[in-house]
């Protein structure tokens, strides 16, 4: 077996363990709650922060699916720059007063899209009995996960601190 194939074999992720199933369940619930709060929260700043949490949970999903490199791109670029840009931009503005005005059309459209995606996703057979993943650039994925986990941990901590600081700034707290 060539070294590349060995690295590939070591980067394969399979679902099926109870831990992963519980993790998926928790991530699903968290993702749905954060998405709902993003859409319905009255404060734009907090909506942006909940969007950052949706991005974080999505990164965890990508990691479970076997794409750690894309998870890091999601973490660094999407959450790190995009959502923080929104948060800081909005925090510099006057906070608008928002009202929660759901109507029947929005509920119908949401239910329609939900059912459509679930039905299509199941009917086209994208649910095999076992998952094997390649990821993008398996060697890079392997190296990132094995040798640079501490850098990733520092990155997550820095991102969390940036989020906390942005909340503090947007709340008008000095020091």
């Amino acid at each position, binding site marked *: 077996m060539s070294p590349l194939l060995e690295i590939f074999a070591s980067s394969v992720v399979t*679902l099926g363990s*109870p831990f*992963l*199933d519980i993790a*998926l369940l928790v*991530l*699903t619930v968290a*993702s*749905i709650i954060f*998405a*709902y709060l*993003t*859409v319905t929260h009255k404060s*734009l700043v907090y*909506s*942006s922060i909940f*969007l950052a949490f949706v*991005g974080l949970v*999505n990164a965890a*999903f*990508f990691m479970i*699916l*076997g*794409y750690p490199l*894309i998870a890091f*791109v*999601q973490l660094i*670029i*999407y959450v790190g720059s*995009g*959502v923080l*840009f*929104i948060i800081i*931009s*909005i925090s*510099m*503005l*006057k906070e*608008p*007063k928002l009202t929660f005005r*759901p109507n029947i059309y*929005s509920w119908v*459209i*949401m*239910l329609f*899209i*939900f059912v459509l*995606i*679930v039905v299509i*996703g*199941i009917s086209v057979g*994208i*649910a*095999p009995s076992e*998952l094997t993943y*390649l*990821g*993008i*650039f*398996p060697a890079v994925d392997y190296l990132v996960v094995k040798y640079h986990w501490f850098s990733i941990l520092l990155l997550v901590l820095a991102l969390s601190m940036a989020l906390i600081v942005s909340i503090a700034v947007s709340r008008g707290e000095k020091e």
Partner: protein
Amino acid sequence: MIIIGLFLIIITAAVLIGVGVWGIVYNKNLVKMLLSLEVSFNGITLLVLYIASTTASTTGVLGIIKLGAYIVFLGIALAIGEISIIVSVILYMFKEKMLNEISQDEVGSEE
């Protein structure tokens, strides 16, 4: 248990896309519409990566790179550009008093 795990990913993607579209439909606020769009974007990336993971065929350089991963890479880059441009435009409109609040209701009602 495996099927439940896989089903949860489809459910999550569907809910994210649905909630995002729901927010776009009922929100009158430009920034909230952008945020709802981003929620939908997250659901779409999850669905694309999931489909890319479950398809057996590989493509790309050396046969080890999946097309879905490329699509998600491109999508994330485009989303960042979109966020930067739209938020900048909203900021500009707010600074130029084109928007009293960052709300769609106020567009054109300033004069």
